[in-house]
Structure formats: structure tokens, C-alpha cells
């Protein structure tokens, strides 16, 4: 077992960048910040590829099984002898895979931002935050300890808060960042309690030990956690569900998804990084990380499955109606993650039945590339059009050919058209679903169709539809005289990612990443693939007929769906529901009464005490009448009182 300690540098380099840029950036590196952090990130990217090569091809495999290797473990905060937060580095198939994903996507985003964010006032700060995020994400991936996961989890949330709120003087951005943080925080509360349950019954917070203890049916820990129950469900179910709640929060699963669309207020590259490729899949990663334990509890898995599937469907439907291109992408992200989730949900631990797990990871991998590509492409578009709205776009394929090509590839990939990456991963998922659960399979299939529909709706609206000249007028200025398609720094990432979107599908993924680490023989069954592929193609043709050229078909369709369309357009009023709960219930019915009570009842009672004392003192001032005779009288009264008290009563 060789030494993987150098992996430590992969997260640490971005951290260093963050510290340097954060402290001195705005003074000394106002211009060079981008180059610096890109360089450092490039190093970590290279390192992670090295690591991947070493792990997958050199010494990760011991007699056919990929090992979990703890490269480093350091007790960071000890709660009680066994229960402690450890900082560490774990090396196993999924962590290495995620390393690749995160570093490379992040690198692309870094490069893209060089052009995209050029001339921003807080250029250095932007890169500092970007590095901070990359660091936190990498830390999350490499966690050995469930509490370590939680910590980086929080950090990821915070850095995404900072990045979404990057345009801090734009109220909508501020609101979005707050929303993102608070919603995920709420989810994290569940995560935290879940951790506490696990830690209490499992007697440890170390993921490896936890899995080991809670997967052996005779172990005292397992017995205690399954025997202890609350509201009818066993503590295991509670713990896992709560942990999944955390995951659902980050991965924007229904009903905790509301923050994701708003999060698009952030700079587009950020959306590409955080809200497409990395952070939002953290939830999936978390479930995958703890999958052996999840697989011990049917109930929890079922929840995962249905939440995933429902989110996938819901998001797809909403995506069909949105007009803000980034929001469309956001919902498609949500839908794709839903895919990954239910793929995990229907999976079993190990063997053939573990197909879902592998598929989900595969989809995660491919999705990262084409989705970030889509976002960067959208970024390029927005950079040119200065608008997120479809109506301000159209016919851009002439003005920005490279972007157009890349975007098309990405769309094909996500639509699952062979031979693009998406096809392979989606096929795996569908196969798994088909074997496990027909209902889910149906939903998946329908969603797939929807996906290709709205993706091409997007594509046609941007690049085809009306011609550019006419468009230019309506937009009020001429793109032709605009700064073209942007610098090479913006094109290069598109090209690279496009290449990935085409290529990564051919990786024999199942050889490397499976639930039990043993290679899994999978094959694409052409017969099986006919259904989804043909469905997608139909959907594409449909959307082509709707949106390729301006016509009224789409409006007819809208009219056809009527109320349902409006509901979908309004995102099924989930946001409104949340607003109602917070603005109409929490604030006026809990917050204000308490604040009022504090001033008037708690504080009031103390004031009352003071005032009564004062009142009494004014009330009795008559004693001191100023008449010496009364004084003598009181004197005598005192004598009498004392005598009575002590001669007769006392005794």
C-alpha cells in the first residue's frame, strides 16, 4: 500500500490561494489573482489525475477489490474517548472520481472566469471565494469522518453563500444568497441530528467504523440502533432519513429545492461550478458514501428513491415552462440529480443488484461535464446578450459558432443520444430502474423525454428562432458590434468540456466504481435502448417544430395545458408556500409575540416590582406626619405592640 499523503495537497493548495488572496488580494493581486489561483488549481488537478492513475491502475486494487485507503487521519476534536471529529483523507473509488470531477470542472471555471469576470472590481475576492469553495468541496470529498463531512458541508454552504451574494449591492442576489444558506442550513439541522443519532448508537463518528459496525447484523450497535425506535420508526431509519434530509437540502431535492433557481443570481461560472457539477451532487455523494448503511434500511432507501424520482419529474416539468435560460438549466440540474438519487435508492449493496449505485455515480460523472458545459455556454451567451431571458436571444449560432457547437453537443449529451456521454450513464440508470421498480422506470423514461424537449427548447430559442438582425433591434443594440464570442480563455473551456461530453461516456466505468469495489460486467443492450432514445428523438423533433422558427405552435400547446402550465410556470407555488410559512407564521406568530413578551411581560414584571416599591413608599409617607404628638403616639403603639407580641404571643 503506497503513500497517498500527497493527496492532502489537492485541497490545501486552493486553501492557500484563498488565504493569500483573501488577505492581500485586493491590495497586491488585483490583476494577477486569476492567474495565481488558476495555476494553483491546475497543480491540484494534475495531482488528482496522478492520484487517479495510481489508484485505479497501479495499486488501488487488491485481489480484484478496490480498497478503502485511509491516507491520513488526525483527531481534531475529541468529544469522548471514542467519539471524536477526525480530519483525514480517504482514498476510494468514489472519492478519487469526485476529485477528478471537482478539480477539472473547477479548473475549467477558473479559466473561463479569467475572461468572464475581467474588469470586475472585486476580481481578487472572486477568485478567493472560488478557491475557498474548491477547498471545501475537496475536503468534503476526502472526509473520513461523518462530522468532517458536516464541517466541509457547512463550509461549502458558506462559500456558495458568498459566491451567490458576490454582487452584494444587488438586492436580489443578497436575497438569493440568504435563501440558499438558510434553506440548506435547515436541511443541515436534520443532517446534524442524524449524525448525533449515528454517533450515539454507533459509538463512533468515523465513517469506516460506522459502516463496519452498522452493517454487521449481530453487532451490539446495530441491535441497539434498530431496537430503539421513535414514533414507530427505528432509530436507524430516523438517522439515515435525517442525514438524507441534509443531502436533499444541498442537492435541491423536493421540497428543499427552492433555493437552487434563485441561486442563479450568482455569476454564471459560479453556477456552472457549484450549482451544476459539484456542490449540488454533494448530497448524492453523501448517500453513496454511507450507502452500505443505507442498504441496511429499506425504509430509508425507499424515501431516497421516491424523493429522487419525484424531484426529477417535477423539475423536468417546471423546466419546460421557464424562460430564464439559467433557471431552465437549474431545473434540469435538479432533475438530473433526482435521477442519481433514485438510482441510488433502487440499488442494492454489491453485485449485480448494485448496478444502480454504479449507474448513479456514472451519471454524476458525465453530468458534471455536460452540465457545466451548458452553464458555461449559457454564460458565454449571457456575456454577449447581457440578459438571461430567452426573448432577448435567438439566431446566435452565426455570431458564436463555437459556443453553438459546444452547446449542441451538451444538449445531445443530456438528452441521452448516443454516442454522447449522457446516453451511457442514463442507460445504466434506466436498466437498473427497469429491473428494480417498473413505476420508477416509467417516471424515468417520461422525464428523459421531457429533458430532451426542454433542453432543445432552450437550444433553439437561443441559437435559432428569429434571425440575429431582427433580434438585434428588439434587444436595442447590435451584437455584431459587440465583443464577439469572448476571449480564448472563454472558448477553451467550452472546447475541452465538449470533448469530455463526447468522450467520457466510453470510459468503462463499471470496472472502477461499484458499490462493493469489485468490477461489474455491464453491457448496453441495444434493444432496451430503443425506447428511451426514440422517445428523446421524438421530443427533440417536437421542440424543433415548436421553436426552430417563430410560430404559434408553442402558444397553442400552452393553451392546451392551460392551468397546469401556469402552475408549472409558477413552480407549483412551492416558493409561495415557504413565504407563507415564514412571513405569515414564523415571524408574526412566533417571533413578534416573543419579542413583545420579552419587553412587556418578562421585563415588565421586573419594572412592576420596582414601581410597586415606589408606590408603597409614597403610600406610607403619611407615617411621617411631622406632628410630634403622632410620633409619641406611634412610639407608644410600638411599645404596646412589642409587649403584646412578646409577653403573650411569643413563648
Amino acid at each position: 500500500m503506497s503513500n497517498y499523503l500527497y493527496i492532502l495537497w489537492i485541497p490545501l493548495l486552493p486553501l492557500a490561494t484563498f488565504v493569500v488572496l483573501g488577505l492581500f488580494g485586493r491590495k497586491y493581486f488585483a490583476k494577477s489573482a486569476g492567474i495565481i489561483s488558476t495555476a494553483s488549481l491546475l497543480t491540484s488537478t494534475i495531482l488528482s489525475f496522478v492520484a487517479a492513475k495510481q489508484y485505479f491502475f497501479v495499486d488501488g486494487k487488491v485481489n480484484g477489490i478496490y480498497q478503502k485507503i485511509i491516507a491520513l487521519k488526525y483527531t481534531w476534536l475529541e468529544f469522548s474517548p471514542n467519539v471524536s471529529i477526525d480530519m483525514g483523507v480517504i482514498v476510494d473509488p468514489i472519492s478519487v472520481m469526485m476529485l477528478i470531477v471537482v478539480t477539472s470542472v473547477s479548473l475549467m471555471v477558473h479559466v473561463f472566469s479569467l475572461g468572464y469576470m475581467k474588469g470586475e472590481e472585486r476580481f481578487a475576492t472572486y477568485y478567493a471565494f472560488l478557491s475557498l469553495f474548491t477547498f471545501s468541496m475537496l475536503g468534503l470529498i476526502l472526509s473520513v469522518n461523518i462530522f468532517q463531512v458536516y464541517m466541509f458541508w457547512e463550509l461549502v454552504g458558506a462559500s456558495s453563500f458568498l459566491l451567490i451574494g458576490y454582487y452584494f449591492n444587488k438586492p436580489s442576489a443578497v436575497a438569493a444568497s440568504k435563501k440558499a444558506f438558510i434553506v440548506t442550513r435547515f436541511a443541515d439541522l436534520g443532517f446534524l441530528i442524524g449524525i448525533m443519532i449515528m454517533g450515539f448508537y454507533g459509538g463512533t463518528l468515523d465513517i469506516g467504523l460506522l459502516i463496519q459496525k452498522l452493517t454487521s447484523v449481530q453487532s451490539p450497535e446495530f441491535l441497539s440502533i434498530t431496537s430503539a425506535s421513535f414514533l414507530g420508526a427505528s432509530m436507524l431509519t430516523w438517522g439515515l432519513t435525517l442525514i438524507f434530509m441534509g443531502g436533499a437540502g444541498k442537492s435541491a431535492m423536493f421540497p428543499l429545492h427552492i433555493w437552487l433557481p434563485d441561486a442563479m443570481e450568482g455569476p454564471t461560472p459560479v453556477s456552472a461550478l457549484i450549482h451544476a457539477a459539484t456542490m449540488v451532487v454533494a448530497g448524492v455523494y453523501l448517500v453513496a458514501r454511507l450507502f452500505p448503511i443505507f442498504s441496511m434500511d429499506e425504509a430509508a432507501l425507499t424515501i431516497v428513491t421516491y424523493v429522487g424520482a419525484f424531484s426529477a419529474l417535477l423539475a423536468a416539468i417546471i423546466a419546460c415552462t421557464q424562460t430564464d435560460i439559467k433557471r431552465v438549466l437549474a431545473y434540469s440540474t435538479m432533475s438530473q440529480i433526482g435521477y442519481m438519487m433514485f438510482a441510488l435508492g433502487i440499488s442494492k449493496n454489491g453485485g449485480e443488484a448494485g448496478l444502480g449505485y454504479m449507474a448513479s455515480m456514472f451519471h454524476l460523472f458525465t453530468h458534471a461535464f455536460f452540465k457545466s458545459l451548458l452553464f458555461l455556454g449559457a454564460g458565454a451567451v449571457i456575456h454577449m446578450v447581457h440578459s438571461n431571458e430567452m426573448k432577448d436571444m435567438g439566431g446566435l449560432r452565426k455570431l458564436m459558432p463555437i459556443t453553438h457547437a459546444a452547446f449542441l453537443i451538451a444538449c445531445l449529451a443530456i438528452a441521452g443520444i448516443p454516442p454522447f456521454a449522457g446516453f451511457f450513464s442514463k442507460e445504466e440508470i434506466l436498466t437498473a430502474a427497469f429491473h428494480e421498480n417498473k413505476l420508477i422506470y416509467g417516471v424515468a423514461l417520461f422525464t428523459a423525454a421531457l429533458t430532451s424537449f426542454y433542453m432543445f427548447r432552450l437550444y433553439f430559442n437561443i441559437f435559432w428562432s428569429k434571425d440575429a438582425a431582427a433580434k438585434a433591434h428588439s434587444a436595442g443594440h447590435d451584437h455584431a458590434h459587440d465583443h464577439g464570442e469572448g476571449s480564448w480563455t472563454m472558448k477553451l473551456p467550452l472546447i475541452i468540456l465538449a470533448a469530455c461530453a463526447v468522450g467520457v461516456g466510453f470510459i468503462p466505468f463499471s470496472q472502477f466504481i461499484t458499490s462493493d469495489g469489485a468490477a461489474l460486467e455491464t453491457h448496453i443492450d441495444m434493444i432496451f435502448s430503443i425506447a428511451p432514445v426514440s422517445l428523446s428523438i421524438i421530443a427533440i423533433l417536437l421542440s424543433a417544430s415548436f421553436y426552430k422558427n417563430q410560430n404559434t405552435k408553442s402558444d397553442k400547446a400552452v393553451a392546451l395545458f392551460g392551468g397546469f402550465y401556469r402552475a408549472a410556470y409558477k413552480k407549483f407555488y412551492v416558493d409561495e408556500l415557504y413565504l407563507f410559512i415564514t412571513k405569515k407564521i414564523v415571524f408574526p406568530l412566533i417571533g413578534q409575540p416573543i419579542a413583545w413578551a420579552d419587553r412587556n411581560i418578562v421585563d415588565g414584571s421586573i419594572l412592576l416590582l420596582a414601581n410597586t416599591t415606589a408606590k408603597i413608599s409614597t403610600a406610607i409617607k403619611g407615617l411621617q406626619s411631622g406632628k410630634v404628638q403622632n410620633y409619641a403616639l406611634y412610639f407608644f403603639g410600638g411599645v404596646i405592640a412589642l409587649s403584646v407580641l412578646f409577653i403573650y404571643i411569643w413563648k
Partner: protein
Amino acid sequence: MNLSLLILLPLLTALLILLSKQLAQIRVIGLVGSLAQLGAAGWLLKLYMDQRAAGNTATYLFETNTSWFKALNINYHIGIDGIALAMILLTSLIVVAGILVSWTMEKLSKEYFFLLVLLSMGAYGFFISLDLFTLFFFLEVAVIPKFLLIGIWGSGKKENSAMKLALMLMAGSALVFVGLMGIYYNTNTFDMVEIGKMGISLGVQKFFFPFLFLGFGIFAALFPFHTWVPDGHASAPTAASMFLAGISMKLGGYGCLRMAALMPDAAHSYSWIIILLATIAIIYGAFATMMQTDLKYINAYSSISHCGFVILGIGMLNKTSINGAVIQMVSHGLMTALFFAAIGMIYSRTHTRMVAQLGGLLKVMPFISTVFVIAGLCSLGLPGFSGFVAEMTVFMGSWQNPDGVYRAATVISAASIVVTAVYILRATGKTIMGPISDEHALLSDATWNEKLAAGLLIIGILIIGLAPFLINQLIMPSTDFLMINIDKAITLK
């Protein structure tokens, strides 16, 4: 090292301040003095660690015990364990910061600095004393300076706040006094160590523990005796707010902890009440904060909520939770001090603390805004800052208590972190972010002294947040000593 130094240094500083003439001179003396205190505290830490490393397993180190009032068996008995030391370090750090932020205090500067130093002296004395009488003495020494600081240099309806604060704290110490009498006449000594050895009969504990705990609880903003906190903090001048929240509220928490260790049986049998009050304080404080519109009130109420964690940790009576309580005391001290410092800096420039009237300060005062955000993130318990470590330790500790009620308390308290996020982000979003109003568009950023002050506190926060094992190493052995008695009491049940 003789611990009396910790009292003598401030005393000397105070005298020098009295002798000196104008502001320039006074503040330099104050700064030098406080730095000397910081140095002394640091040196003490080193010595302490060496002693422990050398295998010295005594509960208290650097003890000196000289008879004070022989006739009444009152002794000047001082000594420290890890917990006290942590508190001392906290105090010295905040004192330096406090002196720095009040660098340009023109009004009656001599008296101002004098009182600040006096207050710190009280705190040091309190933390080092092992004799309950001395403890009580220093507890009250620390009260009157607060009254004057708020009343003279404060803002808003300062007189009322000062009066309310002084009276409530005095009521607290009156209760404490009654408790002390009870202990004294049943053990014939004030010496905590001896009392700990001989123990107190159950009846006495049951009768007098409430007095002591409530008394100190008032200092620690225990619900429902917290109402001095918002007004007091809001009216106080910046440095005084820092001292109030950073130091004197800790006197209460520390006292509660010591009392719980001194009367473990009573603490155990009353623990459910303590936990109930603490939980109420936590969630209630959080919600009350959500409704505030004045930055200082926001921070004051959040202090109530955060100090609730201290009480909760103590009430749970197990090692982890008590560790958490101690860490939370230190963390909250630093964090709130930092917060008040930032608010003070903002207020001194914009002359308003109303959230509604502020906005977009990040544009004109990036440093201060960053400080503000850091304080906020620490307060909502973000990993990497001290708040996270403290709160998580408390949670993990209290979760160890499998009883349903305690579980509920834990969950409710944990839920408060969401509310905390809400109000912190609202405050940040409205003041730091968003569009800036024109009359604030030309304001200046922090000066060197403010930067230094904030920097010191942030360093403190980061040390705990990034390397909690250090502070754990410091306090854990001492909590073990505390737990010996407590465990005995609990297992006895």
C-alpha cells in the same frame, strides 16, 4: 508564578492612569498595562502547560493560601485550573481589544480607562479565587464599574439601563450571598477545595443550590432574569459592551459551573429545571433576536441565546457537555466582543445602529464589514470558527443523555442554529450588503487600532475554531477533576 500578579497588574495600571494627565498618556498606559496582562496570561499558560506536562496532577496549580480574616476563617486562597486559565486568557484578550477600540475616548478619558481596568481586575480576581468569600468579593467589584461606564459614557436611555443592570446584578449577588452563608454555616469554611473534599449534606445542597445557581444565573443571563442584558449592552459604550458580554457574563457561567461542581447532588436533582430554562433561553433568545432592528439589541439578544448553551452544557452534567460549556464561554466571549467592536466601529461612523438605515457598507468599509461578517459566521456556528466547536461539543454532550426530555431539549437547542442563521444573515444582508445610502457613501474604513483590536479577537476565534484540540487539551483535565464529584453524585442516585 504568583497569581496575585494578575490582580496587581491592573491595580498598578489603574493607579498610573489616575496619576497621568491627558488622553495620549492615559491610553498608552492602559494599552501597555493590558498588554502586560496579556503577556502575563500567556506566560501563565506556558507555565501551566509545562507543569501538566511535567505530570503535576494537582487539581489547582499555583495555589497560594494566606489567611485573610482569621477570626471568620476567611482566606485569600487563589489558584487556577484549566478552566480558570481559559477564562483568564479570554479576559486579557478582551481587555486589550477593549482598550484599543476606545482609543479616542475624549470624554472623561481618565475615569473611563480607570473603570475599564478596575473591571478587568475584578474579573481576574474572580477567576483565580478558590475561596468563596474572595470570589464573591471580586464578583461585586466587577459590578459598579459597569454601572458607571454605562451611565456616564453610554447612549440612549443609559441611566435606566445602568440602574437596571446594577440592581439586577446586585440582586444576583444577594442571592449568591445567601447561598454562601448557607454553605459557610454548614461547613465553617469558604474554601472551595476543602468544601469539595468534605462535601455538603444533601438537605443543605437542596436548599441553597437554587440561590447560588440563580444568583450566578442572573449574571449569565439565565431566562427569565436576562432583561438587563439587552438594555445594558445596547446602552453601553463599545468597550463596555465588549467587557459586559465578553467578561462579566462569563463570571456568571463560571460561577454556575463551580457551584454545580460544588453541590453535584443538588445540581443533578435540579438539572431538569436548569435544562428547561436554558432551552427556553436558547430558542426564545434566538426568536427574540430575529425581531430586533437595532444591531446592538440583535447582538445582545443573541448573547442570551448563546449563553443558554453554556447553562445547557452545565445542566447536562456530563464531561463533554461541560467541556462544551467552557469552550462556549470562551468562544462567545471573543465572538460577542468582536461583534460589539464591529458594531461600535460602524456606529461611530454612521451614527446609527438601526439596520433599516444602514446598507452596502462593504463598499466603503470593507475591513469592518469583513469583521462583521466573520463575527456573524462565528455566531451562526460555521466550522473553522470557535462557535462551531463550542456548540457541537455542547450538542454531542447533551445528546449523550438518552432521557427523552433531554433529547427534546437538545433538538430544540440545535434547531436554534437555523434561527441564528436567519437573523445573522438578515442583519448582514441589510447592513453589509445591499445598496448603500448616499450619506454613508464617503465614510472611512477602520483605523489601525480598530484593526488591531479586531485582529486579536479574530485570531483568538480562529485558534479555537481551527485547532480545538489545543483548548481541549487545556480544559479537559480540569473537567475530569470536576466530573469526579459529579459522577459520584449521579451514580449515587
